[in-house]
């Protein structure tokens, strides 16, 4: 397992990182950001879309802030698993990510920007050659998608991060920075459908921090994760729910690991609320509606039909636990 050679840059301030990115962009050089490296480096070892330059965020000071209202991109997931002022829902989700060893390196920024996964894609180079490559890493061949053949427009690789849905239902905002300055938007608007583009980050931009409003911080919720093993495994499906305790109209649901992006389900929630909240009946109706709205494909460990069925159970359990 030999990584392809690349030049590693170690800026120490956000400004330096941005200007470095600007310089590389100006020269037409491609690069990746790296934070903890637990996602990017395994992919590099498998020669999955490696770039000649890698800019590390690890030495930048002040981007690992940790508080109820602000978490920096370099905050390690291990630090998010203890309740030192962090929102309990984030703690719940962070504790379920990968293994304790991975969490010591992995970061919040990396988890939110996680590359999408697919068993036709997350494979060694020779393996992928044996299937004539795929749409996501086509190695210049213009190869077709192997999950859903004969459609050459969309990548259906699955986003399998755990923390994004919890931040979404808490109404968190992300702050993106790059050579062209800073912008802030709700996390729910950060992701963009397609397994390749994944999110709206422009070239040269990186996710600087996540902030949580007072209203968001007052929410309570639950995150349910489906996985085969209680360690290591990415979610096969994940559902987060939150509300402002006592106010059922504030209910929010988000799902992950079912499609190329995590997403909120405001329409499904609204439809059920419209009928008037009726305890378990509403919970079940909501669970059925969320299940209906997701479209998993066959590219993770468990079959899509099962994952879809489980969305109902996970939603039910998330809401039930939240209401407790």
């Amino acid at each position, binding site marked *: *397992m*030999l990584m392809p*050679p690349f030049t590693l840059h170690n800026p120490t301030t956000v400004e330096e990182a941005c200007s470095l990115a600007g310089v590389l962009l100006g020269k037409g050089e491609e690069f990746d950001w790296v934070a903890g490296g637990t996602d990017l480096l395994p992919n590099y070892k498998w020669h999955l879309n490696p770039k000649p330059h890698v800019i590390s965020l690890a030495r930048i000071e002040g981007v690992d802030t940790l508080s109820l209202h602000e978490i920096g991109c370099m905050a390690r997931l291990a630090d998010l698993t203890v309740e030192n002022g962090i929102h309990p829902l984030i703690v719940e989700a962070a504790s379920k990510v990968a*293994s304790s060893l991975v969490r010591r390196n992995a970061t919040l920024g990396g988890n939110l920007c996680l590359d999408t996964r697919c*068993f036709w894609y*997350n*494979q*060694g180079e*020779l*393996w992928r*050659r*044996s*299937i004539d490559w795929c749409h996501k890493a086509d190695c210049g061949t213009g190869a077709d998608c*192997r999950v859903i053949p004969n459609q050459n427009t969309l990548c259906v690789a699955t986003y399998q991060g755990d923390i994004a849905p919890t931040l979404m239902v808490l109404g968190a905002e992300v702050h993106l920075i790059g050579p062209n300055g800073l912008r802030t938007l709700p996390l729910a608007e950060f992701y963009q459908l397609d397994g390749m583009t994944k999110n709206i980050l422009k070239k040269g931009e990186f996710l600087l921090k996540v902030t949580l409003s007072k209203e968001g911080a007052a929410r309570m919720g639950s995150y349910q994760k*489906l996985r*085969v*093993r*209680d*360690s*290591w*495994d*990415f979610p096969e499906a994940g559902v987060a729910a939150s509300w402002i305790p006592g106010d059922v109209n504030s209910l929010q649901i988000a799902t992950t690991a079912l499609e190329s992006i995590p997403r909120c389900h405001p329409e499904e929630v609204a439809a059920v609320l419209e009928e008037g909240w009726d305890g378990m009946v509403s919970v079940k109706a909501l669970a059925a509606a969320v299940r209906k709205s997701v479209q998993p494909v066959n590219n993770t*460990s*468990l*079959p899509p*039909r*099962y994952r879809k*069925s*489980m969305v109902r*159970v996970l939603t039910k359990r998330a809401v039930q636990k939240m209401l407790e």
Partner: protein
Amino acid sequence: MSEGYRQQPGGPGQTTRKDGKRVAGKQAFPPPGSGGSKPQMAPRDLDFIPESVGGKEPQPAGSHIHDRVRTGTSVGREMPLVDSNAKVTGQAWYGDDVRLPNEAIGKILRSPHHYAKIKSIDTSRVEALPGVLAVSTGADAPQRFGVLPVTKDEHAMAVEKVRHVGDLVACVAAIDEATALEALNLFDIEWELLEPVFDPKKGLEDADEPIHWRGKYHLARTNVQKRVFQEFGDRSLVEKPHAESYGKWSMAGVHHGFTEPHAVVAHWDPNGRLQLYTPQQVPHYTHRALSTVLDVPMHQINVIRTFVGGGFGGKSDPFPHEMCAAILSRKSGRPVRITFDREEVYWINRGRHPSHIEVKMTADKDARISGFDIDALIDGGGFASFGHVTSYYNGVLATAPYELGSFHYTGARVWTNKPASGAMRGHGAVNTRCAVEVGLDEMAETMQVDPIDLRLANLLPPHSRTISGFRITSNGMREALEKVRKGSNWDEKFRQMPLGKGIGIGCGFFISGSGLPIHWDPNRFPHATVHMQVDMDGGVTVHTGAADIGQGSTTAVAQVVSEVLALPIEMIHVRSHESDTSPVDLGSYSSRVTFMNANAAIRAALEIREQLLNAAWEILGYHPNNLIMNDRRIYYKHDPAIGVSYLKALHKAQEDKGALIASGAYRSPPMGGVHKGAAAGLAPAYSFSAYVAEVDVDVETGMIKCTNVWAAHDCGKALNPLAVKGQIIGSCHMGLGQVLSEKMVYGRTGHLQNANLLDYKIPSVHEMPHVEPIIVESCDPEGPFGAKEAGEGPLLPILPAVVNAVYDAIGIRLRTLPLTPDVVFKGIEKALKASEFDDPTDLPSPTLTFSSLQPKLVARAQEHKIRDLARQRTEDTSPYVNGVLFGFDPTVPLEDQVEGWRTATEPDPEQLAELGLAGRAWLKKEQRQMEGEN
């Protein structure tokens, strides 16, 4: 005497005067000491000396021939493995730790195609790349090899065609890994793609281009590598059964998942001899195969076994990459190292066969098992490997521990265009064992009896013979069942727990050593040989070829030698790494090592012991019969003060000849039947095990959590209880993987989708239940100090125990392995559809009301218990063969008592129409029988 007896001190001897000056005319020859920091002899520990020879170690299963040489030193004591310090401090040298000066890095070019002919390979661009030192293709090594002499079907690299994605095509050595990887992209190959076969059922059909061609022995034009038919017993008993069970199983292939990937270093030394470093379970077969492929005599090859980072059967074939490294090293004149990526580990595979198994079983009105009908179609992948044996094991290893009225087995192993299956812990026995044990559970359910009592009332006794002619010696099956029943509180839980909570039973039966050494006649040449040498310092060097793959074979050898010679274990040095210095050993497979190798070591140690005792006799004047060996001292048994230190006796024995040398060997006694395939599954002893597993099933998600396991294993005698418990717990973990989450997934295009340890789901510590290991000691008459295997057998029962527990929890019989949550969920959905309920949490949990058969079974089991105890302690030595339970006379051949008693290895023509899936291989003819037809 509180300080005890002193060992011989070191330092100056009698040749110096009191004032320290040398006696005139005498040289000082200071003797070495043997005391070190423990100068006193330790007292004799009667707790570890058997009752039969005056000690306090209980022997409920009777005495053993080795009792008289027990010294209470090591056997039966919990001790850490002798190589554990090296391992926990990171100093053990595994395959990839070998670094030779000036080494080059080898990489293998692998096939991107499932099945293709190689029309041409042009290596000119590779050779032109700066930094490339050597290139090789199949043309360099046309000789075929394979682990079994009957099925040599592998090449170092593809000679004519590639047989699966990842099959070896060519290899290259370069100055570094980056160059070698770059070189792999420069081969110009012209392929002719062939139609691949992935489904083993398709493998039974004729193909345009069978994956291998066996000439006149080839079965029509199919991809069947081996077919087996075996039928024993009285088939009329199967008609009109009182109860029956039929199940169709689909079991995914699983991989050993060892930690260390394959790695090899080859180096041709200045004398032109090949030195090959490899983590091998079976270095001797690699030695033989290298000799064939390289066309070099065996004595010009030294195979050096590095530490092995887990094998479990997956490092027991001679491997093509070992040949590649040797070829590249010969070509480049430099040492060449090849280390696999995990993906390559999965491509070389040799894991458990994906299997389609059908089991039908019947019982008569007395709940006697009148028939087992097993049909196993196993998916061999691209090569034969151990498959010839696996094809038999899938059937014959199900002929015990139960007494059967009849037995019928059809098996077929087919080649497919996938990585080759092979031997894996519990070789060939695991899948059918699971199917059989679940079938028994189902029959018990139909007859409304307790499944444990059903088993207890149908066990073969100790010192008996199975329906297929295997000789059973010691047998701790009954005790194992009783202990897990009690330990798990079975009678309070079975069929009495709420929905989602279940408890299940499973048994196991496995060989302890294979009766037939594959490469030679067992009557002429031993299975295992051990050499021993004791030099002046008193340390004992043991040379053995037995490969310690983490199971602790080195420790077992050191322990038995330490026991016989009454020396602390640190005085025993086992040398087992090099074929140059070790006698031939067949290797670590078939759970043979402790049984055979420790027996050989005991024999060698006995020779040394005799020489020491004779020397002590000369010094003390007491006959060896009256001497006791204890901690570095030999003394008169009635007066410990009259004695001699070990070193003094040793030096006496060494007079005139120097170091003491001894050799010991083990060969199995002649046994078994004469029918075709009678040698498969034949072993000098068998292990037995019974597990009870408890599970929680989430009925909404189908997730299974195994919470508790009571695991009883009959290992004859636990030489090292710590190691036995480790093997039981480890086996449990591995078996749990197969039953709950591990599978090699082949996608719609035939590609292996999960060749990595993230997607190949080995249970983590979170999935591990609490395992209560229970050691049963049945004292095998031929085992070393009574020991039998403990490394493979303990894996078998966990699978059926879990599957049966899942039934107890949710009332659904599942016959697809692994029981991933989606499989369980599908079963629950089906059950819901068939029921009146909408919500799975409303499903009924199975219950049991005993029928009138239950007390009869309990009474029969009680009778058999008395019978078994008498036979175990050889108080009853009357003959017993399978069939006595059905009223037959064990002293008269069964063929003479029953009309139609079968011992058949080929189907009768009228049977052809009703054969199972794999049995259909018998509808085809071999090429030699087809002459004139095509």
